[in-house]
């Protein structure tokens, strides 16, 4: 019998990191407050005590530096897992990820590679300070050489994290902080993998394909529940933004003929646009209605008092579904 442990997403991150630190001595965890403090969200809780300060490294407060030195570590034989405290602070390190991490294999013609994971809590809905709630996943989908992963539940979190750490190329790992502790699941204590690049059909259905990732999956599940079997919805959790699973999406849309894509990020050049282009290229003739996007508007993420105005909610998702179904 497989031993199961009840865990939320944060605990699944810790379990995944512990498993990989124990397995491979070249795995190191580094970032601001990840050691003694165990991370501001406790994602690295207890790991420094267990593996020592040379494996779980408290760094100076400098995002560019954290990612920049992680790249050098990866080039010289380590498997760094860097934590950026909030995804809104990733942009200081954006240059390093874009100009180097994703290009090392190509520029060295395979002599060097960059097996690096950069983890960051992302997304809104936690009433945090400015720039603590960004959804910048589409930015990272536009950088060749980088993979971009977003789990939405504890099982996928541990399995995807193990895959990311063992991946030979750099992976950005965005953790939906709104549901960090909202979902609990029984997950296997022993190692298992959720493959990068494979979407999850979370619920099968025939009338409509609902594509979503991160914390919005919860909103979409609530919307489906509220619709109370009015439509048979196929819910797809994308899980990997880049390289995304076109096959699963296309075969679902071919089956249902209708599609709604929901994301927290703003609309223009959001990742839904890419998915709609893929549907247009490969499933246009199956469509019964134009694909609808339910997204945040093209404005900066507002402070806590208006964040619920900004973020898609159950009613907006239902409105999107009704628009497609009523076309």
């Amino acid at each position, binding site marked *: 019998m497989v031993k199961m442990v009840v865990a939320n997403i944060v605990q699944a991150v810790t379990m995944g990191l512990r498993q990989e630190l124990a397995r491979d001595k070249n795995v190191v965890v580094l970032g601001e407050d990840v050691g003694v403090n165990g991370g501001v969200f406790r994602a690295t809780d207890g790991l420094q005590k267990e593996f020592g300060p040379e494996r779980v490294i408290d760094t100076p407060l*400098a995002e560019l*530096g954290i990612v920049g030195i992680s790249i*050098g*570590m990866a*080039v010289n034989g380590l498997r760094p897992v860097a934590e950026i405290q909030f995804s809104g602070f990733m942009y200081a390190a954006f240059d390093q990820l874009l100009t180097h991490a994703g290009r090392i294999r190509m520029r060295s*013609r395979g002599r060097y590679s960059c097996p690096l994971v950069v983890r960051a809590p992302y997304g809104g809905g936690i009433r945090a300070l400015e720039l603590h709630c960004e959804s910048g996943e589409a930015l990272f989908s536009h950088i060749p050489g980088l993979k971009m992963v977003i789990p939405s539940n504890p099982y996928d979190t541990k399995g995807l994290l193990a895959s990311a750490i063992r991946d030979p190329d750099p992976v950005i790992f965005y953790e939906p902080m709104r549901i960090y502790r909202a979902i609990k699941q029984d997950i296997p204590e022993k190692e298992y993998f959720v493959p990068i690049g494979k979407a999850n059909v979370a619920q099968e259905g025939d009338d409509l394909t609902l594509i979503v990732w991160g914390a919005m999956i919860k909103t979409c599940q609530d919307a489906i529940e509220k619709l109370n079997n009015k439509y048979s919805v196929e819910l797809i959790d994308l899980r990997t933004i880049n390289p995304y699973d076109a096959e699963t999406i296309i075969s679902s849309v071919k089956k249902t003929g209708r599609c709604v894509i929901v994301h927290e990020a703003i609309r223009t050049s959001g990742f839904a646009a890419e998915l709609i282009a893929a549907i247009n290229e490969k499933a246009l003739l199956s469509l019964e209605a134009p694909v609808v996007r339910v997204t945040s508007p093209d404005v900066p993420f507002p402070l806590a008092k208006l964040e619920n105005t900004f973020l898609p909610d159950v009613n907006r998702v239902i409105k999107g579904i009704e628009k497609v179904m009523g076309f």
Partner: protein
Amino acid sequence: MPKKVLKEFMVEYLQILDEEGNCDEALMPKLSNDEIKKIYEMLVLTRVFDQKAFNMQRQGRLGTYIQFKGQEACQVGSAFALQDNDFIFPMYRDSGLLITRKQPIAQVLQYWSGDERGLKSPQNVNNFPIAIPVSTQIPHAVGAGFAAKLRGTKQVVATYFGEGATSKGDFHEAMNFAGVFNVPVVFICENNQYAISMPRKKQTHTETIAQKAIAYGFEGIQVDGMDIFAVYKAMKEAVEKARNGNGPTLIECFTYRMGDHSTSDDASKYRSKEEVEQWAKKDPIDRLEKYMRKKNLIDDSYKESVLNKSKDIVERAVAEFEKLPPADPKDIFKYVFAEMTKQQKEEMEELFG
């Protein structure tokens, strides 16, 4: 209450060989006559290469090329203190460094002709691909040094950058991490006085680049960057210190870019002929030659043979470069990920059928 002095700092300057080839024997690093000759031969080879590459660019046989004339001692002198297994994280003006570090000359030319294959390090050395965006390679050196320390590989890591790079955050964050984690890294600033048109004095308000190390808690030294012995000695000591676990060093090589910033630049717009002539008198190769004449290590026939041999090596490399097969167009997909994505496979199919 009177103010107290908490800490006082000083910045050292090292010169061993003056412009006339006079040497301070007390400071002279341990180098055999054969080693001095080897260094001289490498200096000449890199200069011959630099001139040839410049000419080839003018003839349309290379793309944009970045000259390093004047900075040979910084690159050759420091590389001589490194082992093959050590890492370098160079910048674009470091072709002389790469050649000293056994990067085949044909490959260096291949890179400047616009072909990534030229960046691939030979297996027995660790030459990281040169960085084009200024300063961005400096954190990588700190990470590679950190890895060397944690893995116990005994490697030392050297990173190279100009004085302009010290204005960027990458430099400061890397220096700070290096101090905090006491990593085996040598930071080599080739202070050639100009970042394209911007003179050193407008780049930073500090009198030296070397003193910036003080803020990060480790040693910085300024050396005469056209004095091969000073560069070598400072580097040798910094490398030994790093290898023994005693942390990083910043070496500011005070030098001059004799040529334009690049083959697309015209330096006469922002600096005078007189200034360039003054610096030419400090030339690293002339200076070493004067020293070698005093020590009877060089005569006219040796000098000529070194020059001819260098020209021969470079010409053979040019011929080899020009015979290299063109890159397979499909290579643009081959090295992005360890395994091509489905999207890439589709795009490749679309592009090549």
